[in-house]
């Protein structure tokens, strides 16, 4: 398909896109227009609908309603193959490459050039074209025979970009490209993006890092709750303005008030470090306190949580639980010391899909329903029914398999399971991701109840409105360090967001 490369107008145009998953609305009439030959940023908090929009463009899902135009032509159904023929390519962090392939095989997968008139692969041509692009755009040499799995993350990304460039793309979509890159590698990427734009390629750039958006993009579209709330030229917009738009303000009533006087320290962490993940993390948690933890992907916040539950072992530093040092924690020992972890990826780590709702609900608290090793089924069932009612889990009953529930209800099962357990310290990893508003409020209330009966709660969340609303203090991690601590009552989601995105004034502040 040949289209004039530099026509004015939109390379991509989404209008009034609606998309539901399992009854939950992911997009509620979002629009996005990307002019040709520009770098366009797309930002929004988790769950705002960014990734759904990208997946629609990639042809992985179909929109329920709305219009998608590519190069001025409306497309009713997109397939991954059609999208590629239209010249749209996607650069993801690390996915979509077969680890056991060589660079050459990965680059030309599905479009291997053949020696004219024969079925044989033209290895020499493949070698030459790959080397040309790598040398020209990146100034590096990656041998075609190297295995993908032996490459660094940055090199894999280069391979992906090269693969796209071999096709002379019209549109390149970057989805959080720098999350796993170090500073110097990111700089190389930015130079490349600017050069591609100057050559007429349209770039859609999705990122959490507002400083990157500020430095790189011509314009930015902000998504919130499945809608586009603004599209702004970057020349006249600051990062803090964008942050303000990303955060909803109309849900102030969601957060139940708590009246708890925090007790003594129940958890003390000093100088904790895990090389490559985080360094010198120190904090304490008091009984009755809700501590927020946040940071972007790769900031180390999640790794700190994993270490506290004994899923990873720290290289250095100490953890004290209730005044007693905790060495060599593992999940069994952590549970014995009355820690509970609610993991984020609940479908994979939180529930057993082929067990019943009831069995899942009591899995973590089974000891409470056991006498001399035998299950007290009547009490167990009662507890399951109570939890189902309390969290309004939509299910045929406690004997239905968890597999039959919708995603959001599976999440509720996972959370209810952990919260029903009698623990002293709760570690909650993104407790409300993918849950509808009503259930969110219910979960906030549960967290409040836990604190009121004297437990210490750590909530890791990237929903900053939520974090400011339900916590007492917030620690912000950035690239493996605690760079700011906030008292929740005296801060705003915007300030926390600015800190976690490493916006320049904060970095200056830290030195």
């Amino acid at each position, binding site marked *: 398909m040949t289209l004039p490369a530099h026509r004015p107008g939109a390379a991509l145009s989404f209008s009034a896109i609606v998309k539901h998953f399992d009854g939950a609305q992911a997009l509620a009439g979002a629009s996005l227009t990307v002019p040709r030959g520009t770098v366009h940023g797309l930002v929004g908090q988790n769950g705002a609908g960014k990734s759904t929009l990208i997946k629609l463009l990639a042809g992985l899902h179909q929109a329920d309603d709305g219009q998608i135009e590519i190069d001025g032509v409306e497309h009713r159904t997109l397939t991954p193959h059609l999208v590629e023929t239209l010249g749209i390519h996607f650069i993801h962090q690390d996915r979509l490459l077969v680890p056991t392939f060589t660079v050459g095989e990965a680059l030309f997968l599905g479009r291997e050039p053949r020696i004219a008139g024969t079925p044989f692969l033209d290895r020499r041509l493949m070698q030459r074209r790959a080397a040309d692009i790598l040398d020209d755009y990146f100034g590096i040499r990656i041998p075609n025979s190297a295995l993908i799995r032996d490459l660094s993350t940055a090199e894999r990304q280069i391979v992906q970009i090269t693969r796209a460039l071999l096709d002379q793309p019209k549109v390149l979509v970057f989805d959080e490209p720098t999350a796993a890159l170090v500073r110097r590698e990111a700089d190389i990427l930015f130079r490349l993006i600017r050069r591609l734009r100057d050559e007429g390629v349209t770039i859609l750039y999705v990122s959490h890092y507002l400083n990157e958006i500020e430095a790189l993009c011509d314009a930015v579209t902000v998504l919130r709750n499945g809608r586009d709330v603004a599209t702004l030229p970057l020349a006249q917009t600051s990062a803090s303005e964008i942050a303000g738009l990303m955060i909803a303000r109309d849900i102030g009533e969601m957060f139940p008030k708590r009246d*708890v*006087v925090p*007790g003594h320290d129940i958890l003390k962490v000093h100088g904790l470090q895990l090389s490559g993940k985080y360094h010198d993390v120190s904090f304490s948690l008091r*009984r*009755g306190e809700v501590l927020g933890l946040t940071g972007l992907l790769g900031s180390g916040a999640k790794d700190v949580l994993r270490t506290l*539950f004994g899923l990873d072992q720290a290289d250095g530093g100490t953890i004290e639980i209730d005044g007693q040092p905790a060495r060599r924690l593992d*999940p*069994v020992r*952590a*549970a*014995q010391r009355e820690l509970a*972890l609610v*993991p984020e990826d609940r479908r*994979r*780590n*939180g*529930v*057993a*899909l*082929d*067990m019943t709702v009831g*069995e899942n609900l009591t*899995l*973590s*608290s*089974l*000891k409470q329903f*056991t006498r001399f*090793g*035998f*299950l007290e*089924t009547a009490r167990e069932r009662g507890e399951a029914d*109570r*939890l189902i*009612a*309390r969290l309004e889990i939509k299910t045929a009953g406690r004997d*239905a*398999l968890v597999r*039959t529930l919708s995603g959001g209800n599976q999440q509720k099962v*996972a959370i209810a*399971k952990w*919260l*029903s*357990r*009698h623990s002293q310290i709760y570690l909650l990893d993104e407790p409300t991701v993918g849950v509808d508003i009503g259930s969110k409020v219910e979960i906030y209330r*549960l967290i409040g*109840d*836990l604190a*009121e*009966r*004297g437990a210490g709660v750590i909530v890791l969340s990237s929903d900053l409105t939520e974090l400011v609303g339900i916590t007492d203090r917030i620690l912000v991690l950035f690239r493996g360090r605690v760079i700011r601590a906030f008292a929740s009552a005296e801060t705003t989601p915007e300030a926390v967001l600015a800190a976690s995105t490493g916006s320049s004034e904060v970095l200056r502040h830290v030195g």
Partner: protein
Amino acid sequence: MTALTDDPIPVTRPVKETAERQDAARRGGVARRADIAAGLRASAVFLLLAALLAGFTIAEPAFANVGNLMSILQGVSVVAILGAGVTLTLAVGGFDLSIGAVAASSVMAASYAMIVLQLDVFATVPLVLAFGAAVGLVNALLIVRLKVPDLLATLAMMFLLSGLQLLPTAGRSISAGLVLPDGAKAMGVYDGRFLLIGRYSLSGVVPVSVVLMAVVAVSLSVLTERTRIGRLLFATGGNEVAARLAGAPTLRLKTLAYVLSGMLAALGGIIIAARVGRGDVSSGGSLLMDAVAAALIGFAVLNLRRPNVLGTIVGAVFVGVLLNGLTMLNAPYYTQDFVKGAVLVGALALTYGLGRRTR
């Protein structure tokens, strides 16, 4: 700060019950039909079993006499006991391919203990059970510690055991008067009390092996369905990460499953040895496949769609009844494997195809 209460989450009861009842009444007809369908699926295996019993009795009245029924149960007891072991390893998300070989080498071990080492029943039985437990422990070490995939680890163990059982006697079967590799003659004989395990019937009616099968069935059913350990076994198989995060010692649970599987296979071997009274190098040929088939047929029982001990026992009995009845009706022996296969295919279709819709 409020004091810690027993109930971690204070709960308000829903006021929806009446609404639900009305709703249920409205959907009454549809719901009743669905209930009946679900009930049929849950009891399908039992209904078929009853139909088989009735059909065979009509065709051949001798089928229904107590002696024949007991001989059916005695015939399936070893397969049922081994199948219970398979059920345990399936529950933790594993698979034990070595059970047939464990049973066969247990026959040899029991014979060797009595005939060569001249031990009595009270030493032989614990020794052979310990042997089974040890094999299970090695399996568990391979799978849990060295992370060898379960199918491969237990397949390797199967080969190892079928070779190992030939070593002490240089490949000869063991019976009284065996000539050992060094030329000496073995002086021991089978302990008469040991033989009772395979040959004695309580009150002349219920064979000891059937009693053993019942004990295994009841105790393992209780273990898996009624205790915390059992629930955690299934949780380990259902989602190991979730179970581990819930504080379940998943590695120990897996080890437990393989050790029990090994011991149950050894118990099966003891029963075979006590029945045949000698250590035959070729015993235990089809045990593995039959036990696995029983466990898989068991998925369909009560429409549980997961490994369960009761189902496994029923599955084994079902196959036993079918084969016995067909034999009485003069079906040739070579049709047996075909019949077993057909039952297995039917049970799996029932489990995965028809059962799926309602669960």
